[in-house]
């Protein structure tokens, strides 16, 4: 495996090894472009992956100090856990559920579609679905998405959980389909087929689910073009007197600091850490943080409009005997303002285990008592959704740096402010109501609405824009202000779309790698 010198200034330095960073490293490596991947978390082994919700949460989550602010219930229920993400090689792809859907055409142009939305900072993406299609195809093939033309892999079998929801959807005339999952249904690409353990969100012990942890990263390393340094927390990105970035300062597992020189830097630390890094890299030349001439770094934080709905039935469902997301009710994924809200949402059939259900059914201080206990006693008779809808970019939903408090690395603690736009609230209420109708049509005796839990989808804090004044990066994820500084993760999203973000993150990273290769050849960067 490659080992590069700290003074080697011909390298691409990639910060983060998740969906964006891990993919970019492998794509570049296959083209013969050398990179160092700096990853804050540890490198886990397959044998570290257990079918245990709290154990895995404790083992792999990003638990560094963070604050949640705003009037939303999340700030009260989880004051220090705005997001549920991973600190480890593979990033949040270790515990993602594998749902891999393409954006719809209109979702790349929400400003054009709906015009100006009061109180929101809506903008069109500088790219279209048509431009993305070949990259979606490549991403589906790379990740092994079932039910797609790209792979020809069949869908998973229909689980009991799926059947309950599909019947309810049929009865109320809503469209429900099996989920496109980046989970093998046949042995493929050196990985096993899914065994239906039901613990996708704790990491896949069998490697059936795509994760950069055991796909992109080892493939990249095998080329000899990539060195992955786990337990390497990037503290700041530095630049030369011309304003080009020239390396990053990071702390290793023992707290020792190193400076790695770079020709190009790609930031892929997920949507809280990526803007935080840029803000922490403020200098005399860039007093508001790197690439922040627009003032948009850290702004427009999006998480999708979410919530949960769990129905109780008279007879067992055993929802946990299933891939975590066996199917999706797509009926309301379009943009139809006559519903009373703009943009769309998916009802994703999703199970939690009993331990997480007890924590999320009625989170926070008031989560106790007979009603909750009775519902939990019905755990095996439950079926439910996780609502995933497009949320509005709102400038005041943002990541800022705590004025005084520092974390274990001596960096200011991030403060995450997130609250609903009125459209988000209306959409969620619509989703709660339709879900109830659906479940009652198949005999639900009780339907529980769950508030949003810590964000698993994090987007938008270094958004893509046509004009430098509106966002942080251009159509290639290259920062408007600094040619050799890129953003390669979900923070590039201009708007959130309805769909889960990872397929789009991966497609963008594949596309970005082509651009970086081209620009390097032309000696533009």
């Amino acid at each position: 495996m490659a080992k590069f010198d700290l003074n080697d200034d011909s390298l691409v330095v990639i910060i983060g090894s998740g969906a964006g960073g891990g993919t970019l490293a492998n794509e570049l490596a296959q083209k013969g472009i050398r990179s160092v991947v700096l990853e804050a978390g540890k490198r886990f082994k397959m044998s570290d992956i257990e079918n245990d919700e709290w154990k895995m949460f404790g083992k792999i989550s990003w638990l560094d100090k963070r604050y949640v602010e705003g009037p939303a219930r999340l700030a009260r229920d989880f004051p220090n856990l705005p997001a549920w993400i991973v600190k480890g090689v593979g990033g949040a792809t270790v515990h993602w559920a594998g749902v891999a859907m393409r954006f719809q055409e209109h979702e790349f142009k929400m400003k054009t579609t709906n015009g100006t939305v009061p109180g929101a900072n809506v903008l069109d993406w500088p790219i279209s679905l048509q431009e993305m299609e070949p990259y979606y195809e490549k991403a589906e093939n790379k990740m092994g998405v079932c039910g797609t033309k790209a792979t020809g892999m069949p869908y998973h079998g229909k689980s009991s959980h799926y059947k309950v929801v599909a019947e309810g959807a049929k009865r109320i005339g809503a469209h429900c389909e099996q989920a496109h999952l980046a989970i093998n249904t046949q042995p493929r690409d050196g990985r096993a087929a899914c065994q239906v353990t039901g613990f996708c969100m704790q990491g896949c012990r069998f490697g059936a689910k795509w994760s950069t942890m055991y796909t992109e990263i080892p493939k990249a390393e095998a080329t000899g073009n990539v060195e992955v340094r786990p337990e390497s927390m990037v503290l700041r990105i530095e630049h030369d007197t011309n304003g080009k970035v020239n390396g990053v300062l990071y702390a290793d597992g023992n707290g020792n600091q190193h400076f790695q020189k770079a020709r190009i830097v790609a930031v892929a630390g997920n949507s809280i850490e990526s803007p935080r890094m840029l803000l922490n890299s403020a200098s005399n030349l860039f007093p508001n943080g790197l690439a922040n001439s627009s003032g948009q770094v850290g702004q427009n934080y999006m998480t999708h409009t979410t919530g949960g709905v769990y129905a109780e039935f008279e007879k067992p469902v055993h929802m946990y005997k299933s891939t975590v997301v066996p199917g999706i009710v797509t009926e309301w994924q379009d943009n139809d303002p006559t519903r009373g809200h703009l943009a769309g949402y998916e009802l994703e059939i999703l199970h939690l285990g009993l331990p997480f259900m007890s924590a999320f059914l009625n989170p926070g201080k008031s989560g106790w008592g007979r009603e909750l206990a009775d519902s939990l006693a019905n755990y095996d008779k439950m079926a439910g959704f996780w609502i995933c809808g497009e949320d509005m970019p709102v400038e005041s939903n943002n990541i800022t740096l705590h004025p005084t408090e520092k974390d274990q690395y001596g960096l200011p603690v991030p403060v995450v402010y997130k609250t609903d736009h009125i459209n988000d609230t209306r959409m969620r209420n619509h989703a709660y109501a339709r879900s109830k109708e659906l479940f009652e049509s198949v005999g639900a005796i009780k339907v529980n609405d769950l508030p949003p839990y810590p964000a698993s989808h994090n987007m938008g804090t270094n958004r893509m824009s046509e004009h430098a004044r509106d966002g942080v990066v251009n159509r290639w994820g290259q920062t408007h202000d600094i040619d050799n500084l890129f953003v390669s993760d979900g923070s590039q999203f201009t708007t959130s779309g309805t769909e889960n973000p990872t397929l789009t993150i991966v497609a963008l990273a594949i596309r970005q790698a082509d651009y970086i290769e081209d620009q390097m050849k032309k000696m533009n960067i």
Partner: protein
Amino acid sequence: MNNDKKVKRPKNSGHRMSRRGFLAGSGATLVGGAAIFSCTGLFAANSKAAQKIGEESNKTLLRMARDVFPHDDLEDKYYQQVMAPLAKRAETDPELMELLTVGVEALNQESRARYGTAYLRVETEEERVVVLKAIESSAFFQRIKGDLMMGIYNNPEIWAKFGYGGSSWELGGYINRGYDEIDWI
């Protein structure tokens, strides 16, 4: 909870299933009701924690635990089992012991103010819940609630009672063990 005898279970001789069988048998009879509380506390009677906190407080804590997450067909021993680590810690952690002692006092004070009697002697669950609600945001209440939640719902020994399967990879998942079985849809 899972006492529907008609539910088809996959055949399996693994230890998990035999434990499930054992629990189903022992938990089948309802052991709720006030009678049980006259002789049991939350901490085992012979534990140092029980002696330190006193019999009355110990019983009060058990009553409270059963009111916070009431599962009438879950025997006291499970609530006690859940709290064993807390009891152990309280023996050597004076601050924790203080939290518990003062907490029980506050609970009783609240109860006396509302119903003129100690928590343990408030007759109905409905009334006791009013008392608990009043102290809900205290560190004492949240500590008990948090430990109970993890202890009950994150306890592999009682998952089977809730019809939750727990770890399945070592059994080959559910691909050949009924992931698609449902007889009422």
